């Protein structure tokens, strides 16, 4: 049989439980916009009953725990999706910078400069003696050469930008893994004590892991003591327990671009996801391919023009001059060094137009030079310079289009996963408002109950105490 004093404790427990519930609700409302926060829930349980002559009597309510609502599978999928989205986002941004270089739908570029050069030579073929037309050939050649150089420099700048980003991302990764290791330690310490689940610390750690997953492809496993072990690439340890293992970005000859090392092992090839992979892909795969095509074109144009020019005669009856500064050896760097030969710049009479001495009206070489514009001298004799360059711009557009499409797909998947996670873990103000009313009512009822017990107690004291 219950007692009045026992009822006091039932009322008190009710007040405590509703206060805890209100605190949890308040905390949820306060964190409604906190990234990575998982809503919490006060788990109420019936307090242990006591045995009486009339049977077991309830003793009120206890707060068993404060539980964070999470779906481990969705958290895992988010970490899995991060690297895909991060890689495509970075690659798309880098290729957009390349697109700006080659976007001849908006500005004049190499294609029109090549056309202008060969057209100027064609005009010179009509009047080889015309000094103004000679100067025009020189000007157009210089403009074309300058564009080859500036395009090459712009591509190298994109490469350098990606390389600088690699160093910066490695620093960010190391900072994140150090924080995660610290949080590992705190979670383990807290959960090994009286607190069953370090909800807030876990939320913070999960958010950092998600940030990390956008930077590099990682694998995450949770150990029994609550710590997470994180590895990158092919199992290269980043975090284990309270220790983090730094990655390093080390410059490699001859380019000076940085590779990624885990300890003494070069793991660059293992980086397949995240912003780190996006930058490495842009730097080592995409931009070099464009540069190579640009170099090939510059080397071929220079070589073909020189081959013809050296056989011709200028107005001064001199022969054997290169038109462009000759490029010897592999094509790498040909576009960056592309320029008109200083001897031609110094004297436009050296521009060869004729095939024989003392024939200023002879335009054989000038005509052949103009014909180079349509000659199939590229890609093993299957493409003209303009076809080859159009193909290069197509490649840039196609790569960017694919990266943009991939980014849209990966972003949509990520958004979907974030929504799914939020559907489980995010705070709903409606729910919190309802919970608030619930706990408010519980508190009010508990307090009312205490007043009744208090009145009864007073009545007993006043009636029998006097």
């Amino acid at each position, binding site marked *: 049989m219950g007692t009045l004093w026992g009822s006091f404790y039932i009322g008190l427990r009710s007040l405590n439980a509703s206060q805890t519930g209100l605190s949890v609700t308040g905390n949820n409302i306060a964190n*409604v*916009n906190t990234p990575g926060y998982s809503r919490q829930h006060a788990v109420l349980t019936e307090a242990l009953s006591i045995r009486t002559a009339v049977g077991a009597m309830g003793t009120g309510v206890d707060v068993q725990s404060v539980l964070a609502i999470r779906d481990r599978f969705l958290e895992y999928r988010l970490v899995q999706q991060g690297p895909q989205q991060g890689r495509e986002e970075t690659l798309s941004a880098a290729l957009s910078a390349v*697109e700006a270089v080659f*976007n*001849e*739908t*908006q500005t004049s570029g190499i*294609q*029109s400069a090549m*056309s*202008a050069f*060969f*057209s100027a030579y*064609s*005009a010179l*073929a*009509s*009047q*080889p*003696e*015309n000094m103004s037309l000679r100067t025009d050939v020189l000007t157009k050649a210089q403009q074309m050469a300058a564009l080859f150089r500036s395009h090459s420099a712009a591509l190298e700048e994109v490469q350098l930008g990606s390389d600088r980003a690699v160093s910066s991302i490695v620093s960010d990764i190391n900072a994140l893994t150090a924080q995660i290791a610290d949080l590992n330690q705190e979670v383990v310490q807290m959960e090994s004590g009286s607190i069953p689940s370090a909800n807030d610390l876990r939320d913070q750690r999960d958010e950092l892991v998600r940030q990390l997953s956008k930077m590099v492809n990682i694998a995450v496993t949770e150990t029994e003591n609550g710590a997470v072990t994180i590895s990158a690439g092919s199992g290269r340890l980043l975090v284990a327990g309270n220790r983090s293992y730094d990655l390093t970005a080390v410059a490699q000859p001859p380019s000076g671009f940085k590779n990624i090392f885990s300890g003494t092992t070069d793991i660059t090839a293992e980086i397949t996801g995240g912003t780190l992979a996006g930058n490495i892909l842009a730097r080592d795969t995409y931009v070099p391919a464009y540069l190579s095509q640009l170099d090939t074109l510059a080397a071929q144009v220079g070589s073909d023009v020189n081959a013809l020019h050296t056989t011709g005669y200028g107005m001064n009856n001199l022969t054997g001059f290169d038109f462009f500064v000759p490029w010897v050896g592999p094509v790498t760097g040909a576009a960056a060094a592309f320029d008109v030969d200083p001897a031609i710049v110094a004297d436009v009479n050296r521009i060869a137009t*004729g095939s*024989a001495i003392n*024939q*200023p*009206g*002879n*335009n054989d070489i000038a*005509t052949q030079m*103009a*014909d180079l*514009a*349509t000659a199939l001298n590229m890609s093993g004799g299957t493409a003209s310079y*303009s076809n080859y*360059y*159009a*193909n290069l*711009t*197509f*490649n*840039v*557009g*196609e790569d*960017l*289009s694919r990266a*943009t499409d991939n980014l849209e797909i990966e972003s949509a998947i990520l*958004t979907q996963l*974030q*929504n799914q996670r*939020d*559907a489980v873990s*995010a*705070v*709903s*103000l*409606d729910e*919190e*408002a309802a919970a*608030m*009313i619930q706990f408010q009512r519980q508190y009010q009822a508990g307090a009312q109950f205490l007043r009744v017990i208090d009145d009864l107690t007073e009545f007993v004291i006043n009636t029998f105490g006097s």
Partner: protein
Amino acid sequence: MRVVATMQYRNLLDDLAQQKERMDIAQRQISTGLRVFGLKEDPLAAGEISNLEAQEALVDRFIHTADNAVAKLNYTDAVFSQLLNIVTSAMTTGAAALNLNTDPASRQALADRVAALREEVLANANAKHQGSYIFSGTATLTQPYPTSASAYQGDPNAIYVRADETTVVQTNIPGDQIFQGTDPLNVFEYFTDLQADILANDTVGINQNIQALQGVFDRMNALHTVVGNATSQVNMIKERLGSGKLENQTLQSKLGSANLAEAITDMTLAQTGLEATLQSGAQIARLSLIDFLS
């Protein structure tokens, strides 16, 4: 599914971004008239436009070459017309001398006229177009005939220009072909001989020179026809190039130009969509149980 505010805001922002991107594309299409702004929007079209622009530049180059060639050929044609008139005048003067019998003063006058005509031939033989001698072969800076007594100073080479990808057209006739050909004497020598024969009242000589000048006339006339044919050929090529250029531009326009009606419709739809998204988005913040608590 449990719907929370963060999801709604995230989806709202995604929807707004999409509507604004759609509006931006439509607006740029309307304001620029272009369909393709970057390579990624339509890489194939961008590559094709690049090729077409190169082809258009090539056509422009041929048209420019053709214009130059036509100008030079037209000038040459005019010079030939003058030369034919001069030679005709010389033959007429010779024929007149045959009818004058022994009047020395009249003969002197006719001889002087022949001499004057010879100088006119000389002036035409040394004609220049844009600073270059048109009848000195490829030695275009060398005067073909410094004097009427001079031998030909130019060279026998023809000058060709490429009128299109497969056609080359000769734009000059070397002076030795015009003024001498396969004759033993050049045209100036015939004029000089005719002048002397008129003064000497040598009717046989005058007749021989008139016949020789007839040969010169026939040769010049034939070469004049060559020039005329070359002019016609270049003009026809130019006309064909112009049509090709128009087709090229039409194709470029199809590939790269915006369909304005479609763009304006897109713009209107995107604007309506954006307004609807903004209005519905504004409701998200209003509808919460919190607002109904007293």
